[in-house]
């Protein structure tokens, strides 16, 4: 597994300053429609797309709540086979039961999670399954979806279930890769859940801490959001700095503990009506938002990210449609993930000399491969004179996300953008 070889290199240690190692693993969520025939039929195409995008982690919801994993085990096993063929490591997500205060329901939930682990071990073997990630809870802090779940209730479910999973995984090296709570980042006290999770649950039961973050959930003009479309878009794009600050805030709690810091869901807009949020997630703006978020996650020292949703989502989030067709967000992900790699030395030249609406990361490795990713968050055409930043000089080519295509051009000293943009600066031999 690609991920296995990366283990041990880092775990939420010192936040990367300029010149630090890149430790962000790229990932995506498989959306709620992975059982749809269209997704199943297009599976080979999806595998290729996931692999092409440099994906190390794939989060999937087997959907066992209230049902035995046996109910659709064959389909689920097929999906997990496909994920493994793509070279990625699965993260299995178990949302807490709605009847969280019913001890019988909680016991059944734990048994079902364990049955899923047992079946996985029978099919893929102990050591393989022990390398997977196991996530307990999905936005347990959100009063919209949690059925009144308290932190104490979540903690009890987590400890019981994580302990049972750990016994089955019998991980030989280090702690098992079990974690939570995948908090809803819109809630004002989201940090409480992370802090209490880390402080009140036995460290040996936590392999990672996960949090979700979207740029907005409101329709333009509703709930005090600006009605002006231009202001709404610019404001949305201005919020990618939250990925940095949240990764940092969580990172302080995790330093020295060997626990990974993961952004388990991200995208620009969380509204579930495609008429409202598709254009933010699936167009050029979504690509710029996601590219900018990735740079801030790298800057903040996060260990992993999962785009919501990579594939198998019929709604307004998917980076790939059911047939595997791509969006600009997917192309941005692919461009960045294939070129800014785990273990690269990274720096952020615009921190020292910033320009509004732009951000950049420069990545290099021991083989002297060097690339730079530039993100433009503005809606008007702009030019950037690259000689201003010595680290951005010396590249001969630029590859830019243009719609759902990437086009390559010879690079001269000035980089031009239309509305929103993600560009890779490189030399011919380095990509």
């Amino acid at each position, binding site marked *: 597994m690609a991920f296995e070889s990366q283990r041990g290199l880092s775990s939420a240690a*010192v936040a990367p300053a300029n010149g630090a190692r890149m430790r962000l693993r790229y990932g995506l969520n498989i959306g709620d429609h992975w059982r749809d025939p269209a997704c199943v039929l297009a599976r080979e195409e999806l595998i290729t797309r996931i692999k092409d995008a440099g994906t190390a982690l794939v989060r999937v919801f087997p959907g066992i709540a209230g049902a035995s994993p046996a109910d659709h085990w064959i389909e689920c096993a097929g999906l997990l086979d496909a994920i493994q063929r793509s070279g990625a490591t699965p993260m299995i997500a178990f949302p807490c039961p709605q009847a969280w205060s019913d001890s019988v329901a909680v016991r059944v939930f734990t048994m079902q999670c364990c049955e899923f682990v047992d079946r996985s071990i029978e099919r893929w073997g102990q050591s393989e399954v022990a390398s997977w990630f196991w996530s307990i809870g999905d936005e347990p802090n959100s009063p919209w979806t949690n059925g009144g779940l308290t932190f104490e209730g979540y903690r009890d479910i987590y400890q019981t279930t994580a302990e049972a999973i750990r016994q089955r995984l019998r991980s030989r090296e280090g702690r098992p890769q079990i974690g939570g709570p995948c908090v809803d980042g819109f809630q004002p006290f989201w940090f409480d859940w992370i802090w209490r999770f880390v402080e009140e649950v036995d460290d040996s039961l936590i392999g990672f801490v996960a949090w979700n973050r979207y740029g907005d959930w409101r329709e333009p003009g509703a709930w005090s959001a600006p009605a002006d479309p231009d202001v709404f878009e*610019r*404001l949305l794009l201005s919020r990618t700095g939250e990925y940095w600050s949240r990764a940092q805030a969580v990172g*302080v709690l995790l330093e020295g503990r060997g626990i990974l810091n993961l952004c388990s869901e991200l995208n620009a807009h969380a509204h579930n009506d495609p008429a409202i949020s598709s254009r933010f997630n699936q167009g050029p703006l979504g690509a710029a938002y996601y590219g900018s978020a990735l740079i801030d996650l790298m800057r903040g020292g996060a260990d992993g990210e999962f785009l919501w949703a990579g594939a198998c989502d019929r709604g307004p989030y998917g980076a790939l449609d059911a047939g595997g067709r791509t969006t600009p967000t997917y192309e941005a992900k692919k461009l960045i993930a294939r070129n800014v790699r785990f273990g690269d030395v990274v720096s952020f030249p615009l921190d020292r000399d910033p*320009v509004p609406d732009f951000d950049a990361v420069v990545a290099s490795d021991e083989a002297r491969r060097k690339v730079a990713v530039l993100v433009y968050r503005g809606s008007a055409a702009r030019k950037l004179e690259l000689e201003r930043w010595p680290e951005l000089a010396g590249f001969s080519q630029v590859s830019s996300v243009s719609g759902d295509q990437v086009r390559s051009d010879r690079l001269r000293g000035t980089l031009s953008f239309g509305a929103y943009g993600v560009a890779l600066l490189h030399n011919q031999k380095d990509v």
Partner: protein
Amino acid sequence: MSTGDANRPAPATNAVTQVDLGTAAMMPMRLQYGVNESDSWWHFALGENRERLWAKLRELDVRIVRLFVFDKHAPDPVADWPSLRACIQAALNVGATPFLTFAKFRRPFDDPRAVRWFAEQCAEIVWSCTEEWGGEEVKNWYWCIWNEPNNDWIGGGINFEQYRAIYEAVARGITRSLTPWLNGRAPLIGGPSVEGFQPFWLDWVWRLLNEVDDSLIGFVNWHYYAEWRDAGEAAAAGDPRTMQNLIMAQAHQFGLRAAQVSRLLRGRSLLNMCGEWNSHSHYLPAVRARFNQTLFGATYGAGALIQFLRSGIDAEMIWTGTDDAHGYGMLNPSAEPTPLYYAKLLCARHVRYGDRIRFPIQGAVRREWDAVVSYGPRGRRSIFLAHLADRPGLLTLRDLEPSLAASGQFIKLDSETKGRPVVLPTRAGKIELGGFGVAVVTNELEPQDKL
């Protein structure tokens, strides 16, 4: 007391654009210490112990005093100008620059006549100040428009579009009053004094900066408290000890928020100010006092100050200076200090404007400790520390500042010293605190340190 141009600090915003927690190199100390004087303004301005209060604030090197007009029980600027004048004069007597907040009005926000009325009132107050203290003095004061507009309870239920219209009208009125003395320079007007609990608090800062004429903005002001709930209230942790530790863990938020605002200010010569902060803002004074006016509050405050210093922002204003049973303030009406006063005193005395500073605590240790080392003129060196954990902790001085390991003087503020700073001999180059606490190690002990 003059607050003339020569003393006016340049914005620090462009100096530090990103917080690299724990890894910041040596940097200049450019934080102006400040306080709010609000609900208990009468004691501060006119009370029998006012001169003692001013002396206590001078010891804190208070350079900015934030005052309110039109809210927080502030004196009516028209009906009771003498009282407002006394408030402003008290701030000047402290040696500070007044920071006047035109908090709100209670007429319809969409009514152009109401907006015009408010703008004229504000401009009239500014003009009255120039008459009273002279335009050369008053042009250097700070003028803040509205208070917590993003919080319906405090700000009155205003939306951003309404706020923007009021801001521009008031700012133009203030500018008009000050124009004879500005010589083309922009007046120090700002906002939006956002409340930090609201999920989209930073939007207000962004929109102010992007939707209001640049020439009308001199600073950005934001507020932050870690908590407003008591233990067990509204899904907060029920165990008081958990609650305290959770609040303490959020001292880092000051640095992160400061950096987020700094990112928005990149490329602009504007000041970045935290105009209101403390640990707890519960609606009942007795509850918030347990957090703000105890050793816990002192430690949290020390952690906050270190974060402010690290972030490179321009000013902080604690809520509040003088306090008559409101559960926030550092000094009661008799000028008797709380532990937070002493923590701020240690910081102000040993980490001074213009010093060079660095932050030696890195890695996992920063969950329990935070510290700043300051280097002043004539070899003065000090370490100001906060111990953020409620269990015993030990640090080796050699790891923080080797030159102080052998000969530094140790000042401690913790439960053993009953919340007052006490000078003690250093023990084998180590600092030991029994729980939450604040300490200083310095090579320059002042007579006042020996309380």
